[in-house]
């Protein structure tokens, strides 16, 4: 047998192996630890748990959800980094964790390249929201109130959003008292309780806006909000940065391709299935799934990390 034939056979054989691996449907070698970077009971936590539940009943994979909260997702990232990369440990956070937050905390020693991006599930519908009973119908009313001498409390749930709220005030010539709370649910609770006047909500406000209790005053995205397309975007309000971001599932770096693909496609499928409980709440809160996977996701995470410095620079002025 000459070398060519050997090589050809080897190629065919390994090709078959690869095909059979996909055909046999990758199954996790054990229960999958799902580290959730959000507080229990919030919208993001519910989303993560419902996705795990759907995968468990659909594919028979066993999940062990675990709350690893704090430090804007960095605690989850740090805990996940050293876990086995065979698909038995994954985490759910937001793209901001791997961008701004990692860049803002160089001491933590974390980079997006320490992780394997699996898939995003939904993009934020980040609005600037207030109670309808405040009587503000547009962002101009907020500016007018602030200029009229009212001290306004602006709730934010991450340092990046605090920077953006500061830049928004600066662009409009007003000062906000920027109050940082834990999670979008806490912003909503604060706004509802009257502790905050307005704040960022990333999709959790959908029900309240639909019911007429809450108002989307502005879109903190580069695009208008699905629910309130008339609200001005940050660009319209003179801020050249935005809070575009996604909920994202990741694993430790160097996850084998079959595990990565199987996990990513399974999660993305559930997120996009509006008949499932998880897909249902994604549809309701975020206007539908946004699933970015593979190299595109890797590029997205890297870009967030490398561009974070600019926002910090501008906001510190």
């Amino acid at each position, binding site marked *: 047998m000459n070398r060519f034939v050997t090589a050809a056979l080897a190629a065919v054989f390994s090709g078959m192996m690869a095909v059979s691996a996909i055909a046999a449907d990758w199954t996790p070698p054990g229960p999958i630890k799902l580290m959730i970077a959000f507080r229990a*009971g919030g919208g993001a936590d519910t989303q993560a748990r419902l996705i795990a539940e759907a995968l468990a009943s659909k594919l028979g994979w066993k999940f062990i959800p675990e709350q690893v909260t704090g430090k804007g997702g960095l605690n989850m990232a740090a805990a996940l980094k050293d876990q086995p990369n065979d698909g038995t440990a994954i985490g759910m956070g937001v793209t901001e964790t791997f961008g701004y937050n990692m860049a803002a905390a160089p001491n933590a020693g974390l980079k997006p390249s320490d992780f394997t991006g699996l898939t995003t599930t939904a993009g934020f519908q980040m609005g600037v929201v207030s109670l309808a009973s405040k009587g503000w119908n547009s962002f101009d009313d907020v500016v007018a109130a602030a200029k009229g001498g009212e001290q306004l409390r602006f709730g934010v749930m991450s340092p990046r959003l605090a920077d953006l709220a500061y830049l928004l005030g600066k662009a409009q010539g007003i000062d906000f008292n920027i*109050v*940082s709370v834990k999670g979008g649910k806490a912003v909503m*609770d604060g706004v509802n309780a009257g502790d905050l006047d307005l704040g960022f909500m990333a999709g959790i406000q959908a029900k309240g806006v639909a019911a007429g209790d809450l108002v989307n005053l502005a879109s903190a995205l580069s695009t208008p909000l699905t629910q309130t397309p008339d609200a001005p975007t940050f660009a319209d309000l003179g801020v050249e940065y935005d809070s575009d971001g996604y909920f994202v599932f990741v694993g430790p770096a160097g996850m084998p391709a079959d595990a990565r693909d199987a996990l990513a496609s399974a999660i993305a499928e559930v997120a996009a299935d509006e008949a499932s409980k998880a897909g249902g709440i994604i549809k309701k809160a975020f206007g539908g799934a946004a699933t970015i996977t593979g190299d595109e996701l890797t590029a997205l995470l890297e870009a967030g990390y490398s561009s974070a410095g600019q926002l910090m620079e501008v906001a510190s002025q």
Partner: protein
Amino acid sequence: MDTLDYIVLGIAAVFQGPELFSLFGLPVSVTLVMIVFGFLSGIVVGATPGLAGPVAMAIALPILISTFGYTPDALLPVMGFLIGVMKGATVGGAVPAILFNTPGTPDAFMTTLDGYPMTRKGQARKALRVAHFSSVSGDTFSDVVLIVCAPFLALLVEGYLDLPEKTALLILSLSFIAAVIGGSPAKGLISVGLGLLAVFIGTGEDFYPRLSFGTEELSRGFPIATAILGILIVSAVFKELEELWREKRASGVIAPVAETGDQRLRFADIRALFPYIARSSVIGTAIGALPGIGSTLAATLGYTVGRSRYEKTKTDGDTEFGKGAPEGVAATEAANSSVSGANLIPVLSLGIPGNAAAVFLILAAESIGGFNPGPSVFRFTSDTVNPELVIAFGLFTSMFIANALNWTVGGLFMRSMGVMIRVPKQILLPIVLLLTLTAIYVQETRMVAIWFTLGFGVVGYFMRSVGISPLPFVIAFILGGKLEETARQAFAATGGDPFFLFNHPIALVFMVLSAAVIVFTTRKSREPG
């Protein structure tokens, strides 16, 4: 959706939940079965010397969660079980206090003062009956207050308390606990201080994990379960083991006491006890409704008030308080039991726990998800269903079911627990330790959590050895994160006013009270007697 609809939905959620089996054609919901199980295990656990409700709740929680999962459907069965345990352990807790002079919880300490003398006089069963009747009366009263007041109190609190006031209220709670629970205010403050120090490790707003010495283990802070179980339970096991060792060196045998006289609880007895039960129930409920203040204080106050009233009204032939007066047992038990219902007012409306049992209810809600104790629970939305409010009414229903059990089978079951006296402590304690550490590992799944727990156990042991109550430590640990968060938010919300605690009238009143309660108790504890 009005209030009545929510009540109906809440009751329906308990009775019509997932069906476990059917009895004579009637479906029996899982929640109902779990309440009964929880209640019976609560009595057993409460009646076991050295064990208390929180231990059972701690061990049961991870098992329950892995059985029922993380869906909102799991909330009522799991929390129903915990409520059952809480109620059962409250009545069961009087058993070891009365029979063996070993209180299972600090609350039951006052019960030993008159309960154990009654046992020695051969009136053990009567003492148990008095304890059961008072305990259940207090508990039921307190539940009624909870259900009637919680929603309004929650809204009232939200309406009047802004961020600076909330910060000041948390400080007041801590100062109150330090002053009244710790034996002396100074010791209480040390306990609170240590608790705050522990909770501030690895937490905070900044991306840098503070106080962690750059270690990965400390950077996520101490998990709440390791601190609570370590300080409350592991340290108690250490302390008990030490006492067993001492006892063995100078061992004495307790002679069995024969029962004498009428063991029944007559109507005349009830009439005589009623004023004590009523007064203590009000005291217990009022204290329970204050955020972050536990049942030990209620028991102490109930007993003290009962004693001063007894001194005034007793006739010459009556037994004195502390020598086996049924009134003493009644005053204490009604007070410490009536805390448990009212305690859920701050839990449900503010998310602030008042005692260890409430802590586990919050832990359960946080682990399962879908129910966040706090102001949002009591929003009576009219157009859409607020699922959290339905759960809240489901919890209230569970409490009444547990109360009904308490009135019916509770007393009988409680008195049958006398057999517990036969389990030797040297066998019981290692089992408790093993169960606790297993419970921790199941929840945290990392070895370092075990070391944290043992470390907290050692800290708690030394605190107990020098007479510092571990309870303020635990409550400070639970409230510390909330205190920092609220204080930071209040600071930011007031536009960076460093004196936000003193520039708002209600906050100022709270701050003055915080200082006053320390000064007042310090003076009082210096007085002789």
